[in-house]
């Protein structure tokens, strides 16, 4: 990822120059709630990009092959398949609606021509197969071209049907439905490195599934107290280790992360490692616990580190050191003095996700006002960028943004009080190998690419 940059950029600076590439979604100011994007995920090759929305739909974009005539033009992402993954349901026994919102999508590694992904709402996980059909058979003996059966006595000669090309059709079909295993709301799914099992986590329990078996799952973590009045902590995210198929982590609403080894016991209520940063007494407030609640946990591609996102910061942990993170990056520290208002309007409960780049040298997470933040771990530089239609000229460079925290506001800066807290970037994804990022801003999906690489 060496940045052999143009003028002004020192060689090997690793500085990105992010440029607008595409934006998907309606331009209307009036956003239909069903269109709000709730998850974004690249597949293992980065050729496919899936989004899920509050209306239960999944849209998959495919990267176009780069044409030889324009070798420097980057492949664009275009719609490949759209399907309704989940429908709203009503639980009559409890008089509760079950939202169709897609909470997470996770791709399976590709094993044949078809693509597989897991999508989940609050209660049910589904395995979808997405396959292409670009040929059809013609010249059947027993039926006509329009499908009507031919009278066998009329057939005087036999012919071999031939395959003819047809317009590409992409079909999505549900292959497995994993239901009725979660009493509480599913917040995470994670495919194991063995490619045969996956975990699903809700507020209080984590279950282990085999991809082929839908009628039972193994409960591997259960933190539900005998007396619900004693409940003070919930599970917020969980993920399998990228290489060690017996290891997974889960984070909590109290800012802790537990690493579990499934070899040690069937029920992993006792963790192998416990990660928690001691609290800084000087910054203690009534909101300390809420802002320490971890909203996302992600292993690095190398498997040596993991990253956690809490309300104000992103932390990188070395799996060999439980006492404190090795890096802490402030996302929007200027919000610390506004916590009370953010508590009142519920923004303090927003769950931001975070992601690594392919080489684990950079991390990205979202913020408010359609801002998102990127941290380069090597150069220690960080940048704030904005996803907005105003900066959406093709290949236009994104200008770094700055929030003014007090005193005189400089030109091009925005003051904290002018931030739009309804424009939140909760979901972002980074291409597994290249510097292409997907940023979900409410109902729009922005794709940015690095100019240099």
């Amino acid at each position, binding site marked *: 990822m060496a940045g052999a940059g143009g003028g002004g950029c020192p060689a090997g600076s690793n500085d990105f120059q992010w440029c607008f590439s595409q934006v998907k979604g309606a331009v209307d100011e009036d956003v239909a709630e069903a269109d709000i994007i709730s998850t974004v995920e690249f597949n293992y090759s980065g050729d496919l990009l899936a989004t899920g929305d509050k209306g239960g739909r999944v849209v998959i974009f495919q990267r176009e092959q780069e044409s030889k005539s324009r070798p420097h033009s980057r492949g664009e992402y275009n719609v490949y398949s759209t399907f309704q993954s989940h429908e709203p349901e009503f639980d009559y026994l409890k008089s*509760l609606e079950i939202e169709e919102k897609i909470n997470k999508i996770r791709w399976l590694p590709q094993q044949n021509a078809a693509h597989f992904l897991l999508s989940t709402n609050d209660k049910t996980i589904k395995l979808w197969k997405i396959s292409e059909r670009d040929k059809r058979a013609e010249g059947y003996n027993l039926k006509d071209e329009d499908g009507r059966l031919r009278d066998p006595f009329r057939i005087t000669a036999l012919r071999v049907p031939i395959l003819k090309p047809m317009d590409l059709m992409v079909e999505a079909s549900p292959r497995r439905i994993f239901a009725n295993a979660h009493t509480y709301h599913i917040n995470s799914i994670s495919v194991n490195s063995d490619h045969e099992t996956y975990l699903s986590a809700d507020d209080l329990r984590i279950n282990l599934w085999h991809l082929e078996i839908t009628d039972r799952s193994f409960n591997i973590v259960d933190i539900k107290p005998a007396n*619900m009045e004693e409940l003070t902590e919930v599970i917020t995210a969980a993920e399998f280790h990228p290489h060690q198929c017996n290891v997974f982590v889960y984070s909590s609403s109290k800012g802790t992360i537990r690493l579990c080894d499934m070899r040690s016991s069937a029920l992993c209520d006792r963790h192998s490692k416990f990660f928690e940063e001691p609290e800084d007494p000087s910054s203690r407030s009534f909101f300390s616990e809420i802002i320490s609640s971890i909203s996302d946990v992600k292993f690095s591609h190398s498997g040596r580190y993991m990253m956690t996102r809490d309300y104000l910061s992103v932390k990188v942990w070395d799996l060999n050191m439980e006492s404190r993170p090795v890096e802490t990056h402030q996302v929007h520290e200027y919000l610390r003095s506004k916590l*009370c208002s953010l508590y009142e309007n519920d923004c303090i409960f927003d769950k931001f996700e975070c992601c690594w780049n392919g080489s684990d040298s950079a991390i990205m997470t979202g913020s408010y006002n359609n801002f998102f933040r990127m941290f380069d771990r090597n150069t220690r530089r960080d940048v704030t960028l904005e996803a907005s239609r105003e900066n959406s000229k093709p290949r236009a460079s994104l200008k770094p943004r700055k929030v003014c925290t007090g005193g005189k506001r400089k030109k091009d800066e925005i003051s904290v009080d002018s931030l739009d807290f309804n424009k939140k970037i909760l979901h972002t994804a980074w291409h597994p190998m290249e510097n292409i990022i997907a940023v979900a801003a409410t109902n729009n999906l922005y794709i940015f690419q690095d100019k240099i690489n």
Partner: protein
Amino acid sequence: MVGGLKRKHSDLEEEEEEDGKWDWSPAGLRNCQQALLRISLDKVQQRSLGPRAPSLRRHVLIHNTLQQLQASIHLAPAPVLPPEPLFLGEEDFSLSATIGSILRELETSMDETEPPQNPVAPPGLQNEVLPQPDPVFLEALSSRYLGDSSLDDFFLDIDTSAVEKEPALGPPEPPHSLFCAPGSWEWNELDHIMEIILGS
């Protein structure tokens, strides 16, 4: 394309706007605590609006914050009577009991039918105790159900003979019948909830 900040104006914003620093004087702290208590209780009561199951994480976080506030109010030096009756010292116990009952209610509403147990589930889970009747009664009183029928209609069916018994002398236990004896812990709790529902 930057919109303004959408939020309700509250006493706390004025606190915040002054250099972003809190007023740490005892009076300022008490105002802050009371405002936070009020906001937190609003949130707890709001959650039963709407047909969707509430977010357990959000409720646990609010509950924990309320407990902290409660603890700090206990530690406050001068027992100044705050305007809202909800914050009186002797009702702190019913406050936590209210929150506790709401969590139990959540358990009832979300957990009534445990999913089918799998063959290798640990024994603990299979001996799951059914929710107590008391939370069911409390759940029925939640604002979700108060929409159409008036409370009087609701009470018509209830056998009040149990209510006229002598109050239990032992330590409060989870009740075995649907009804509460007056003067008991559950009765106070019920009374308290009725106050919130009818008074607000």
